[in-house]
């Protein structure tokens, strides 16, 4: 658990440092995810079969599962911030509601249909 958490934090820290050093507009955690993913693939290339289908680093798989199982909880504190924006909400509720509802459904339909079509064509 602690080993896995350390790997996650190390990747995030490296991501944050890279983003700042190279002035990348990409957030640190997203770079960290790319780094961890690349690291796992590289490890497989150097020592194939080390981890099988599970990331071989001790505890990483279990920690990732534990954190992701309650992914929803992590959005709660920022979500409660809605209480600060009740005036904006009261004034612009119509565009906000329409943009959120229709915009999200349009995004889902476009992505899903396009992905299904492209995967049939490109395999």
């Amino acid at each position, binding site marked *: 658990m602690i080993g896995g958490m350390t790997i*996650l*934090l190390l990747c*995030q820290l490296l991501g944050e440092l890279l983003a700042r050093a190279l002035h990348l*507009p*990409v*957030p*640190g*955690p*997203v770079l960290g*995810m790319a780094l*961890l993913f690349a690291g796992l*693939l590289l490890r497989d290339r150097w020592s194939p079969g080390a981890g099988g*289908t*599970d*990331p071989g680093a001790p505890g990483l*798989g279990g*920690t990732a599962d534990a*954190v*992701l199982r*309650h*992914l*929803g*909880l*992590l*959005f*709660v*504190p*920022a*979500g*409660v*911030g*809605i*209480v*600060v924006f009740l005036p*904006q909400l009261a*004034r*612009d509720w119509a*565009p*906000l509601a*329409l*943009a*959120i*509802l*229709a*915009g*999200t*459904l349009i*995004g*889902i339909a*476009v*992505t*899903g*249909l*396009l*992905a*299904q079509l*492209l*995967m049939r*064509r*490109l395999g």
Partner: protein
Amino acid sequence: MVDLTEIWVYLARDPLAALTATLLAWLAGLRLAALCRWHPVANPVLLAVILLAGLLLAAGVDYRAYFQGAQFVHFLLGPATVALAVPLYRQWHHVRSSALAALLAIACGGLAAAFSGVAFALLLRAAPEVTASLAPRSVTMPVAMGIAEQIGGLPGLTAAVVLGSGVTGATLGPAMLNLARVRDWRARGLAMGTAAHGIGTARAISVNATAGAFSGMAMGLNALISALLLPLLWRFFLG
């Protein structure tokens, strides 16, 4: 004689109470969602937020005071984003063959989600800072808040619309995909992750492992693409 004011001052100032309340609200949200047999409309994130927001308003607690404690939970969003590499890695043999198609679909879908939201806001004449807050709506929360700051939105309002989009996607997304006859689990996952980020991914993971992996990948790639493109496009069209 117990001095209630003193206890109240302690509770309002110490992070312990806010942290405990956040976890309790989340567990209550999960319990309520389970009572509704995990019906998509009973989203545990939404339920927990409504409970806590109501509590803060009723008790007159300042949001910043609450966040002092809740920030410990908020902090875990970073490591959780990194952790999405693990399901992606486990499904890599599955993902690799359709990587190009996935990338194209995510880029187009992510931009369609951003454009449609902004277009509705412009049509209905929302305040400029509200429109800017809506642009990164479908991007995962920490990234969206950063983008909003760059283009003149309000990061806090962005957090709220990101939450709203995620809950909308997680609750109505599966029905929309059925309606559009998208049956491929890979495509369904990509759609959920692109338009409804982590909340859609949480739902996708609970329904199907393949959909979960594609959803996590879509969320990460959409964050990457949006962080690179949205500020540029915003400056070009609306700046």
